[in-house]
């Protein structure tokens, strides 16, 4: 069990800097999810912690040991790969035992650990099979088993669920979470899937273009997104963004409608509101010309355009609704659910 700290981490490929001064303190036993679109550098960051990529500058600590120059094998970590990377010519048992054998564990110790891990993951029956005789979900478990037999200080997961079908993914997600809770091992999990990120992580690090956009708990990210990027990335359907102008504690939208805010700032800004926070209100300040309604069962997604404007808006309202295309609906938003962003810096404007 260990803390992990990333200090001013930079990664270059040739002359291109792909990770820019990443900082992070991960607590002992914490489940950290690194999330971001593809190419944002999240896998690179994970692989740097694993020791599979070199560190250009900055430092990585596992516990109180600086590991920059340690071989992956000497960092006391275990990793679960996207394609599992099981050794195809070894049985499940041999796969799990390989790392222990190289570390010169005794035969009986290896057997005991493999049995333990197999019991936890319920794969005792497959121990003598080879990976290609297993289903996707079983392989996933073996990959996990290979990680836990070693009893490492840190688990690293590189999009481990992306090769599974949707149903299995939800099931394995729960199992990973439970397992991590039970073992209490500090874990870093990389994914591009925001639902996976929100459900798994104690804290989330949102990466975009090699920069840390925000690092906090899922609720933090949802309620107080630090930038337009985070606001749009977390939550589904995405937050609505309405350009406007801040003045005198109001934001004036492109169609001239004014919404009262608590902000005292002035200038061009973006007004953000999540679809699920739009409340139908005849007298509401946001008037929307509807276009299409999607019935999702529990709620209805109303797609439309800001009246006299061109910004598209989505609202999610409870229950079944159907509006004629072209009808005008008024919406209100509680002040707590307002998000204001600076137009230039894209950063959140505090109220």
């Amino acid at each position: 069990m260990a803390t992990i700290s990333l200090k001013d981490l930079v990664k270059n490929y040739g002359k291109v800097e792909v990770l820019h001064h990443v900082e992070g303190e991960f607590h002992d036993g914490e489940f950290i999810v690194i999330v971001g679109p593809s190419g944002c550098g999240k896998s690179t960051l994970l692989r740097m912690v694993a020791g599979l990529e070199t560190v250009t500058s900055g430092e990585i600590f596992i516990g109180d040991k600086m590991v920059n120059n340690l071989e992956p094998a000497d960092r006391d970590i275990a990793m679960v790969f996207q394609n599992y990377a099981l050794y195809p010519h070894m049985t499940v048992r041999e796969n799990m035992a390989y790392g222990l054998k190289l570390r010169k564990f005794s035969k009986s110790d290896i057997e005991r650990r493999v049995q333990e891990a197999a019991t936890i993951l319920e794969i005792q029956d497959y121990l003598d099979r080879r990976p290609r005789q297993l289903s996707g979900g079983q392989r996933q478990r073996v990959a996990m088993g290979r990680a836990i037999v070693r009893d490492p200080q840190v688990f690293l997961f590189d999009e481990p669920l992306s090769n599974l079908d949707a149903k299995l993914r939800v099931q394995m997600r729960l199992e990973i979470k439970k397992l991590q809770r039970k073992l209490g091992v500090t874990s870093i999990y990389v994914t591009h899937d925001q639902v996976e990120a929100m459900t798994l992580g104690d804290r989330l690090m949102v990466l975009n273009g090699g920069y840390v956009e925000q690092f906090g708990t899922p609720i933090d990210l949802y309620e107080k997104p630090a930038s337009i990027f985070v606001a749009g990335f977390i939550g589904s359907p995405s937050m609505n963004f309405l350009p406007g102008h801040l003045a005198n504690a109001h934001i004036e939208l492109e169609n001239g409608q004014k919404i009262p805010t608590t902000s005292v700032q002035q200038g061009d800004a973006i007004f953000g509101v999540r679809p699920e926070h739009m409340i139908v209100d005849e007298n509401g300040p946001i008037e929307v010309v509807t276009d299409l309604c999607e019935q999702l069962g529990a709620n209805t997604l109303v797609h439309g355009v800001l009246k006299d404007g061109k910004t598209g808006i989505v609202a999610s309202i409870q229950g079944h609704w159907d509006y004629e295309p072209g009808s005008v609906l008024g919406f209100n938003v509680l002040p707590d659910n307002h998000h204001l962003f600076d137009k230039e810096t894209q950063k959140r404007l505090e109220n």
Partner: protein
Amino acid sequence: MVENRPILKIVTHLILIFGIVIVALPIWITFVASTHDEARMLQAPLPLLPGGHFFENFTKTLFGSGLAGSEVAPVWRMLLNSMAMAMMISIGKIIISLLSAFAIVYFKFPFRMGFFWLIFITLMLPVEVRILPTFEVVANLGMLNSYWGLSIPLIASATATFMFRQVFLTIPDEMLESARIDGAKPMRFFFDILLPLSRTNIAALFVILFIYGWNQYLWPLLITTDTDMTTIVMSIKQMLEAAEQSPQWNIIMMTALLAMIPPVFVVIAMQKMFVKGLTETDK
């Protein structure tokens, strides 16, 4: 077959059988010749059906001094030489190609690409086109009339290195990453992961190289002057020359049969491997 026309089916099989007859005819005639006695083999027309002297010819060829009046080593000795040469060439090639492909794919080191091109160039230099100077080198190194001289100059092979490189490149990167996290050092990774994963390719390549080695002709012809080092494939030519004075076709064809049995056996017994190796090495 898409349509089900019986006549077409029959024609198809007939043509294939005709093809097989054409392809197999020379071998059949060789076999027939090896089953008759010397006298029968001097009367035209020669027989088209086997006679009863197969085992007699067999023992005479294998353990006798071969052809009467020619100074060659006994056939069993030649078979042994051929086997040694073929094994040394195929195993040697496989080992050095595996090692160099491993270095080129899995290591970053100075002149890596330089080495790669140096190996690649040998693809363009078959032994036939540099035969004289290569012979001189081997002579200067005192390797004439030795197994080393027979095999080592034929061992370096760009094709095998390429094939293993190709195989290694298709092995997922995560194998190495996972092995490194498991604590495997380079050679451990090579023996524990890489070798087992390339097993079928090694076997396939072995078939091709064994045949290549066994069938070498020009090179052994130049390198060996000592009759004790003669290979079976070479001896056929010497026997043909001798045949101009005393034709003992039954013995010559028995020798030819013995010379083709090991490679033919390897091809047929390991057919699957062989087809895979052939279509994947060259492509």
